[in-house]
């Protein structure tokens, strides 16, 4: 009788499909995964501590480096927290501009998700299409703030500059081509049988499991819980805009893909409404340059692209925050990896990472 024993395989941190530097130890029985343990920390830069040693305004560019695929949303989260702490009233126009750029960034980030999911499952053509279209959004951001990656556009009190005059036309053009390229993904990926086989029914999660790991964002919506902070808290001008929250049914990888795919349409809807309803006015609130928020603490959360992005800031009345803690959705979502991988095959673990869509800059912070 041959003896069998479990086998431990270390995946990453230098692995092309771990989205950066994630290491996962897989305990295997043959090809079946018994346990998957993520090991993090390879990209730790101490951003919380960096924020504590900078003034409130100087901290914003560091938040760009958290989830570097959707910097606008991080800027927004941090700025909203500081504004709440310092009681700064943001002008209406700035709020609308924020919605436009944050939702465009959500589209860009979900395109990266689709692209990287495709290449992780072996469909490299799919990746090229998604990255081609993401460039269109980056071109818009380049116009708005002069950067393609670390935007530093949303500032404490508003945004750094008004939208350039040619922006509206360019954005309009982008929204017009969006359904065309989305249809291309339908043809090239969604309909593809191999793609479907790899995603449907794999890494299924129940509502209870997802809740017990405190997953948020598209990961929780995929199991059928319509939890979206833009709806639940209704911050900024979101309550004035109409959009739906797509949810999944089975909580499998396929639903995680579909939820994000449909969210692109919802974000486009929001951009369209914000662009049409853009009021005149200031783009920056007036507040003292040497910002000293009163003593106190605040926890402010926004719907980042990957889930609930929360900033907890304690102020001691000085020019720098006394303590900053960031609730990073990628980090917390990754805790569900073990449940998603158990009983699956090694190849499915790659689909599972991809479907959680963690970003290591945000996981390690």
């Amino acid at each position, binding site marked *: 009788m041959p003896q069998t024993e479990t086998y431990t395989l270390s995946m990453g941190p230098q692995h092309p499909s771990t989205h950066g530097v994630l290491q996962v130890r897989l305990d295997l029985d043959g090809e079946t995964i018994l346990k998957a343990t993520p090991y993090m920390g390879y990209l730790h830069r101490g951003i919380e501590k960096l924020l504590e040693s*900078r003034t409130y*305004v*100087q*901290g*914003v*560019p*560091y938040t760009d480096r958290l989830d570097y695929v959707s910097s606008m949303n991080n800027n927004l989260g941090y700025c909203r927290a500081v504004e709440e702490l310092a009681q700064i009233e943001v002008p209406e126009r700035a709020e609308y501009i924020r919605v436009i750029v944050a939702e465009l960034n959500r589209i860009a980030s979900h395109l990266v998700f689709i692209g990287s999911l495709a290449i992780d499952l072996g469909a490299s*053509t799919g990746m090229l299409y998604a990255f*081609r279209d993401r460039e269109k959004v980056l071109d818009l951001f*380049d*116009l*708005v*703030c*002069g*950067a393609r990656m*670390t935007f*530093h556009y949303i500032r404490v009190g508003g945004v*750094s*500059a008004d939208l*350039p005059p040619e922006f509206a036309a360019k954005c309009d053009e982008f929204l017009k081509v969006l359904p065309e390229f989305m249809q*291309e993904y339908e*043809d*090239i*990926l*969604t*309909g*593809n*049988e*191999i*793609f*479907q086989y790899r995603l449907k029914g794999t890494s299924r999660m129940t509502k209870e499991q997802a809740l017990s790991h405190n997953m948020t964002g598209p990961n929780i919506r995929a199991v059928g819980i319509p939890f979206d902070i833009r709806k639940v808290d209704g911050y900024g001008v979101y309550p004035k805009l109409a959009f739906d929250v797509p949810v999944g049914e089975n909580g499998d990888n396929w639903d995680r893909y579909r939820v994000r795919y449909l969210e692109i349409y919802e974000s486009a809807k929001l951009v369209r409404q914000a662009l049409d309803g853009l009021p005149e006015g200031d783009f920056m609130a007036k507040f003292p340059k040497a910002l000293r928020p009163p003593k106190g603490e605040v926890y402010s959360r926004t719907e980042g692209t990957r889930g609930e992005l929360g900033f907890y800031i304690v102020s001691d009345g000085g020019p720098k925050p006394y303590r900053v803690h960031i609730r990073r959705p990628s980090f917390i979502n990754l805790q569900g990896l073990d449940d998603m991988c158990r009983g699956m095959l090694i190849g499915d673990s790659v689909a599972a990472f991809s479907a959680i869509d963690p970003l290591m800059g945000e996981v390690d912070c």
Partner: protein
Amino acid sequence: MFGEGLLTGMGVTWKHFWGKKETFCYPEEKLPMTERFRGGHLMFDHTKCVACTLCSLACPNQAIKLKIVPDAMKKRHIESYVHLVGRCLYCNLCIEACNFHALSWDKNYAISTWHKEEMDDELVTAEGKEFFNEMMEKAKAEAEAKAKAEADKQKNEGGDA
């Protein structure tokens, strides 16, 4: 039918194979940078600067090292303005902090270097250096003239008494 989706996907690729190219030949062809583009080296206009150090104070990562020398008239001048490119976040805070528009980006994004030392960029040009010396000389002459005038005045006052 199994394989239908695969074929549809291939159809999309086939169509694009004959369609317009999405890429171009860098570095033979280059795209123009946008008006607000932040990148490349900082450019410094020595005629506009008043040596207030606001730019260096605004920098979150201490990427700007200034050497400020007071002249004989107690006015401050910039002798050296070093931009530590390796520390720079390209956040634009320095440019926004300057009330005299003395700073801007040169937008030349191809700035990789072989050595770390080459990353520190002195922004005061030879022309700026000359300007600096000129200002120092001028202030010195001014101070001397002032001192002389004062001495003369005192002498005269002494004479009167």
